[in-house]
């Protein structure tokens, strides 16, 4: 059984790898869109810190650089794009075939996701080195935090992938509303995940909202853990929150998928 799963994963991984290599230029171009936003916020916050002439909520200019370079990398690893994938399935009339394959659709998308990341990771790492040379980041490692970062990163990925999957299932049923949902999703992610600023820099109100939502555990938590800015107690709370949200979202995802497919097969594709 495990071997079969591994075989399957290898199959999906391989075909997607071949695909990304055929689309080299497009893939690199797509990366520009992933690199630019962290660089913009990095520049903005560094200017702000310079203007203020002090560190902001304990973040010096160098810390800000470290934070956003790490955000770029963690964001890359945890990124999920099932919504786009499904839209292209529908547009290209490929969805029927995807559904009729004798493997779970989620598994197919998961393998595609991992293949893309592995294919593009070298470019991202090179970019990170280039940014480090430009923005002078500061480093304060704590060995235990770096070790703890690995499971935090994986949990963050699992959580984000699941949430994205729920959105995609819903969106595929409501194609005309996809853009609107994306815009809203983008807004919430931007404000509460740590994409635009480390959470301690955000106004109290937004921090409270962020605490009530799953998104900060997808980005802000692993990044600040890596930077050694999270205490042991906060780290444990973080892991618990990640695990709790993951369980809840998996449950919701299961229901969403079931009812989504029921509706699919009622209205046609």
């Amino acid at each position, binding site marked *: 059984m495990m071997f079969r799963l591994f075989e399957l994963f290898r199959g999906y991984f391989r075909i997607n790898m071949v695909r990304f290599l055929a689309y080299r*230029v*497009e893939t690199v*171009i*797509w990366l*520009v*869109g992933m690199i*630019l*936003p962290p*660089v*913009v916020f990095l*520049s*903005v*916050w560094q*200017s*702000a*810190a310079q*203007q*203020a002439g002090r560190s*902001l*909520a304990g973040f010096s200019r160098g810390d800000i650089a470290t934070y956003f370079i790490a955000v770029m990398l963690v964001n890359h690893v945890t990124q999920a794009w099932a919504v786009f994938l499904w839209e292209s399935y529908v547009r290209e009339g490929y969805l029927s075939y995807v559904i009729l394959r004798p493997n779970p659709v989620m598994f197919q998308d998961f393998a595609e996701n991992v293949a893309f990341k592995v294919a593009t990771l070298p470019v991202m790492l090179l970019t990170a080195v280039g940014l480090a040379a*430009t*923005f002078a980041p500061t480093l304060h490692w704590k060995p235990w935090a770096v070790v703890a970062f690995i499971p935090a990163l994986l949990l963050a990925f699992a959580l984000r992938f699941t949430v994205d999957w729920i959105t995609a299932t819903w969106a595929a049923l409501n194609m*005309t*509303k996809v*853009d*609107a949902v994306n*815009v*809203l999703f*983008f*807004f919430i992610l*931007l*404000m509460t995940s740590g994409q*635009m*600023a480390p959470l301690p*820099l*955000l*106004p109290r109100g*937004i921090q409270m909202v962020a605490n009530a939502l799953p998104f900060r555990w997808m980005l802000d938590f692993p990044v600040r853990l890596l930077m050694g800015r999270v205490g042991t107690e906060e780290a444990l709370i973080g892991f618990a929150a990640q695990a709790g949200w993951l369980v809840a979202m998996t449950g919701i995802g299961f229901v969403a998928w079931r009812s989504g497919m029921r509706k699919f097969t009622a209205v046609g594709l």
Partner: protein
Amino acid sequence: MDLLLLFFKLGFVTEAEYRMNFYLHVFETSVKFITGISVLWVVFSQTKSIGGWSWDELMVVLGLWFITSGLINMVIAPSIKQFMTDVWKGTLDYVLTKPENHQFMASARKVAIFQVIDLLIGISVLSTALVRLGAVIGVEQAIMFSLALFSGGVILYSFWVSLGTLAIWAVKLENLVLVFFAMFEAGRWPAGLYPFWLRYSLTFLVPVGLAITVPSEALLGRLHWSTVLLSSAWAVVTFFASAWFFNFGVRKRYMGASA
């Protein structure tokens, strides 16, 4: 002019096709607007000014950003995307056999009418910011602003026409369009905040800086005439260059889908 009106009308009919689309677009634009304001608000909760720009001055940039983005998304981007599709499918033949100016047809053929909302938001943000700044805009500043904005618009337009024409050589360009919008997002902030490589690519590679930062500076009276004149000259050059390029591409290189 009649033609443009007709395109507008057709645009309205196609968009109203889906009742939801209208409400959805209002919703999307509002969220985009709230996003823009919120980001500024968060940054200004930590500082009074950034890179020498105050809150209200950045609202001027945001307003102009919405206006520019509204204009691009209303007419230019949908038409040029359609042009790219036409090149790909070979249906450009239908455009070329119509007795109208082909470049005009290619760049103003499809109108996404709901983008008017973005324009309106942009204008209101801009005027509110200006009132709050109490900017007494002199005649000179007004002229500089108009010139800079017009030049910026022309440069962006020429950029898009060239991008579309490129499709005649390299067919898969949808991704370039995506990159344009990614870089365009960076135009929400004054280009001066960025490290030099990004600043220069925002000025020359994707001329967002010229279209947004420069007119904002003109309005706030921070601009030398030399920059305005340079921008205008650049506009003239790019306009004619892109028109030549378009004609060259369409007349000499376009061979239909079978090519």
